[in-house]
């Protein structure tokens, strides 16, 4: 905290970096002198966009988990599996590692991402005492986000590979689309979230260091 207090931020100097080329230039509202991109001190509407994307992700999360993600048509008849149903099927057949991987990637990670983004959104709106932990949470969210596409990849690969005619055919279910939507939306939400808001919130809380006032 003490170190933070000593730091003179770019924003406090009326400077900002270009989103595209990274050039530091004065004042928001002007195009970047180098590449012409409009410049902002913070990502514009970051909070609002993140919240909107999270809501969209949550909206798609329910069909993604309730509807069958793939339909296996074989000799024994057609079988429609939801994500959780597939995890249970793998678990019952003894494929514990696969079950754990799918459960983690397809169920836990999207939930964790959504929850952590909600935590971050809530945190930037009120004074925070632990900006560093929040930043770590944000980084983790961003890193781990792409792995939740595993299930979508599994479905995509299976659908293309397993086309054995009457013996066995796998077709994507409606949940695949919704689930891909959830993953992409959470990734976009994580991207649109500006972690500097965490620190803005932190400095706003400290009386000696009023936040950036343009």
């Amino acid at each position: 905290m003490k170190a933070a207090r000593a730091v003179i931020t770019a924003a406090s100097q009326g400077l900002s970096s270009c989103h595209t080329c990274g050039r530091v230039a004065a004042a928001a509202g002007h195009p970047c002198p180098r590449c012409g991109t409009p410049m902002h001190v913070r990502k514009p509407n970051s909070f609002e966009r993140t919240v909107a994307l999270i809501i969209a992700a949550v909206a798609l999360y329910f069909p993604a988990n309730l509807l069958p993600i793939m339909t296996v048509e074989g000799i024994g008849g057609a079988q429609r599996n939801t994500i959780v149903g597939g995890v249970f099927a793998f678990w019952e057949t003894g494929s514990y590692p696969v079950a754990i991987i799918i459960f983690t990637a397809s169920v836990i990670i999207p939930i964790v991402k959504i929850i952590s983004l909600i935590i971050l959104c809530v945190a930037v709106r009120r004074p925070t005492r632990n900006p560093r932990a929040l930043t770590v949470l944000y980084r983790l969210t961003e890193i781990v986000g792409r792995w939740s596409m595993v299930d979508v990849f599994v479905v995509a690969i299976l659908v293309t590979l397993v086309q054995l005619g009457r013996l066995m055919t796998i077709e994507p279910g409606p949940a695949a689309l919704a689930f891909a939507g959830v993953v992409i939306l959470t990734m976009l939400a994580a991207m649109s979230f500006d972690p500097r808001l965490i620190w803005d919130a932190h400095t706003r809380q400290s009386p000696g260091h009023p936040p950036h006032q343009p």
Partner: protein
Amino acid sequence: MSPTLAPPPAAKQSPPSAEVRPARRISSTWIIPLVAIALGLWLVWQHYSDLGPQANIRFETAEGIEAGRTKIRCRSVDVGVVENVTLSADLQHVNVGIRLGDENEMLLNEDTRFWVVRPRVGGGAISGLGTIISGAYIELDPGRSERQTRSFTGLEDPPATPTGVPGVRIHLTADQGGSLGPGSIVRYRGLEVGRIETRRFDEKSQWLVYDVFIKSPFENLVTSGSRFWNDSGIAFRAGSGGFNFRAGSLDSILTGGVSFDVPRNGTAGEPIVDGASFRLYDNEDSINDVVLQTSLTYLLMFDASVRGLADDAEVEFRGIRIGSVIGVSLGYANQAGEKRIPVLIEIDPTRLTPGENQDPSQAAARIEKLVREDGLRATLRTGSLLTGQLFVELDFQPEAPRASVGTLGEYRTLPTTSSSFARIEDQLVRVLTKIRELPIEKTLETATDALGEIKKTAETTTQTVEGLKAPIANLDAILASDDMKQAPAELRNALTEARTTLAGIGPDSAAYADLSLTLQDLQSTLQSIKSLSDSIDNKPNSLLFGREGSGKDPTPRAPRLLPRR
């Protein structure tokens, strides 16, 4: 304010006038969650709108049925899937929840039938082999009813005939189950025309009822005069006609079968309607036996043993079957002191009185008349000495004592006479009795006396013969005398003289010639007398008036009766 690190010169000199725009209250970003919500809702809506109607089927067992896997098929087209399988509340059934595709709602009507297709062996065929690999599925046989329902009771066995196949359904009733069952073939002269669909037991009537489906176009073969018989297995019958062995075709031996035909002495009758009921006879013989157009039951009371008289034994009239024995039971005549054996028979009165007025209401009266006036009597007869089977014969016995139709309890009785065997026995006994009653001892005594008399007579005869000896000796002496020896010579002399005498009157003698001439004269005289008598006969008045045209020869006349020319 914080010092700027590199203030832009323009800002320093003259701050640019900020273009002030009112902040948009709602960011366009919010379109994304709206689209996402719409998309999510659409996905959910589409998923559930694809789901068709749900229904519940009750089965005895859920063998081979898996929730989420087992399909519902209609003519091999997938129309739905089993959603859940649960036990019923009373644990007696299984409730199978199914969901059909949304376009298949019309399949769920009241007539729709469901059954589980599993591998099956029986009914002469192996079916459902495909389900060994693919697993069982539920077959849906759509009905035609307009009324929708969502609750069904599944069939445990597949119906032999799907709905919609043209044909007629009839019922066969039988008192014995035998080897017939669902899937058994119904044949007409060896041609398969239908199958037995179900077999059930009617508790009320205690009959087995078979539901039979006759395929189109064979339904016209079944008429009201048709008789059905159990064609299955091997029939061995020892009746009063001897032994009878009959076997159907190999598959009917294995799986059972029913045949039908119009009996030899029957008529085809009217075409039948759906749901007609027929009696199922035990074998082919019985359909020809028991075709009684009208029947009357009579009770026969027999003195003799009825051992060998089976139920359904023949009742014959001079060798022609006119009915059958319904039963032999002491219970028919529930009377104290009754020692005769009651036999209940059923006869067709029209066979006894062919050609007459066949009004059924008058049948009993006609029989009564036959009994009273013509001596109709019932007799037990032995049909086969080998098997000892008896049958009842009705015949006219005019010499029998007069009798009439009586009543005993609720039955009419026909008078009976004892059987031929019994009659022979009777006569034998009578003969023996007579023999026993003969006065043999007395006869023997008399005979002994007679023999004594004969002996005495014989002795007297001997004495008489002794007495005759002396006269015979005298006779011998007479014959031996010389006079007797000379007698032949004298006889010869007498004959010689006689010949000489006869030579005098022989043909060469003069006397003979005279005699011959005299006789010739006599003959001519007689001829003239004859001509005289003829003329007198022709003309009697010639005696008085002389002969007409005297001097002429008399002319012959034609007989008077002929017309003159």
